[in-house]
């Protein structure tokens, strides 16, 4: 009980420190600017975007009703933003430990009669909380605003062909997609956290995390036979598992494999970061 209270106290400390820092809100600000901008622009363009996207196959379909709607647009936004979001996530996750080293505040923090493990866990849970808030914010803003501006209707999914999902079948898919997206971003945050545990400057963890993501993404998407054997083990391959929520039927087995693969990366990165952190000599 005493130990749990102590941990909650540490969690409160880390939440205060993180959420009173301006850089924490940079990601929220960028999303707050970019999502309305794109959605308003798409509304002004009308269905031209949809017609361009469906060029080549449009003659095979007769589309009735409001298909250029909020669901379609927010799905497109989710697709296009998923490259930039990891940068914003690593911006905060990478600062959790490295920020203390850079600021010299390890000397304030780690001389107290509390274990380094508890401090580490409080910092990690704060990072996870940030990721969850960030992804929720993105989801609510993106879907909510799109529905407000463009209305609802059946959803067209443009992935290796055209799939039409009934309006009543879409909302739960978005919820699940954002849960899976949050899981992917927790993986990114965990890798950022690992870099943060041994790098002692603010920029290193961001560069490190993005470097890993870029290299592994290239290996994931480049059509080279040599990489085919390892592709399925890379977390970048599984980070897009949320897209599978818009397939019909939903490939639950594939999603389960992706969730487990990402879990492996999360556990591995956090365990390595913990070992580094508790053994670390604070020299800054």
């Amino acid at each position, binding site marked *: 009980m005493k130990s749990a209270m102590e941990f909650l106290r540490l969690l409160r400390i880390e939440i*205060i420190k993180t959420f009173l820092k301006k850089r924490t809100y940079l990601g929220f600000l960028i999303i707050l600017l970019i999502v309305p901008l794109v959605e308003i622009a798409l509304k002004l363009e009308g269905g031209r975007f949809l017609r361009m996207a469906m060029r080549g196959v449009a003659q095979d379909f007769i589309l009735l009703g409001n298909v250029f709607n909020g669901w379609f647009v927010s799905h497109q936004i989710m697709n296009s933003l998923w490259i930039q979001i990891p940068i914003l996530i690593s911006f905060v996750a990478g600062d959790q430990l490295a920020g203390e080293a850079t600021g010299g505040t390890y000397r304030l923090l*780690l001389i*107290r009669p509390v274990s380094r493990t508890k401090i580490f866990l409080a910092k990690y849970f704060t990072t996870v909380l940030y990721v969850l808030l960030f992804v929720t914010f993105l989801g609510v803003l993106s879907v909510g605003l799109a529905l407000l501006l463009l209305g609802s209707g059946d959803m067209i999914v443009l992935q290796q062909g055209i799939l039409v999902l009934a309006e009543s079948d879409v909302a739960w898919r978005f919820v699940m997609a954002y849960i899976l997206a949050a899981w992917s971003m927790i993986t990114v945050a965990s890798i950022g956290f690992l870099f943060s545990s041994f790098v002692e400057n603010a920029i290193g963890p961001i560069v490190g995390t993005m470097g890993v993501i870029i290299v592994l993404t290239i290996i994931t998407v480049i059509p080279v036979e040599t990489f085919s054997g390892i592709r399925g083990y890379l977390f970048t391959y599984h980070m897009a598992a949320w897209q599978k929520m818009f397939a019909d039927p939903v490939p639950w087995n594939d999603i389960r494999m992706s969730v487990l693969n990402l879990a492996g990366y999360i556990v591995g990165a956090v365990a390595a970061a913990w070992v580094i952190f508790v053994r670390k000599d604070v020299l800054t």
Partner: protein
Amino acid sequence: MASEVILFTRNLGKRYKDRWAVRNLNLEVHRGDIFGFLGPNGAGKSTTIRMLLSLIKPTEGGVELFGHNLKTRRAYALMSVGGIVEKPDFYSYLTATRNLDLVGALSGGVQKKRIDEVLDLVGLSGRGGDKVKTYSHGMKQRLGIAQALLSDPELIILDEPTSGLDPQGMKEVRGLVLHLAKDQKKTIFLSSHLLNEIEIVANRMAIINKGELVVQGDVNKLLDEGERYVVVRGEPKPKIKAVLRNTKKLYAGYTERDGAFEVKMDFKDVHLLNKALVGAGVHVHALVPRRSLEDFFLSITENESRQ
């Protein structure tokens, strides 16, 4: 009866690759001490303090605080310890009060009243609501002392707390250290590279050089040990020699070095020698009391700055 030892190190050592930053360090700090930890820059003082506060892990040996092994019972060992390591850094985007609230929470939580008390004690009352980024170096140093005192620890470890302060600031910090020791019965472990500073405030001290303990003990005893002499500078030199020939009862011997006379004598008789010199028509430029420990410390400090 000897007072209780509340901090001791046993063969403490830290090695970085093939260089020992600290080696075979055996320190003893007694309850109620103001313990001066003296050494030139780079002697290993901060490395030692980092090991005492568990910021770095010793390569060999260990630390006991209040009877608890720091390695195996870290939380208990650090329960009654507060400290500053090198320059005090804080969360600059937060106010001083908020910083102290967070630091206090790490030690089990403190009330607002206690935060106000320590801010008042270090002369920062009225500035607690300001963000730390607006603070001067001296104010941060005082805030550093405030955070060290926050949980009302028995042992306060201060790493060069007067570093970078102006003379007035240094005087205030020394006054605060004496107040904490005498009025609040705290034990203070104070590192410094200034012998004079340790002499003013400390009752016991250790000197460290190149990571190894040189000497440890009671400040007055250590300073009294060995030879005491007075450096006499003046003109004309033949007259000085003549005076020294006629006042042999005042001193135990003298040597001439670098145009000055080093006269081995008790400091309480310096005024008699001065009187004799002036009476003989010597223009006395300086009479400088010196002690062998002081000389020794100056020599290692000078060697360090030359390297």
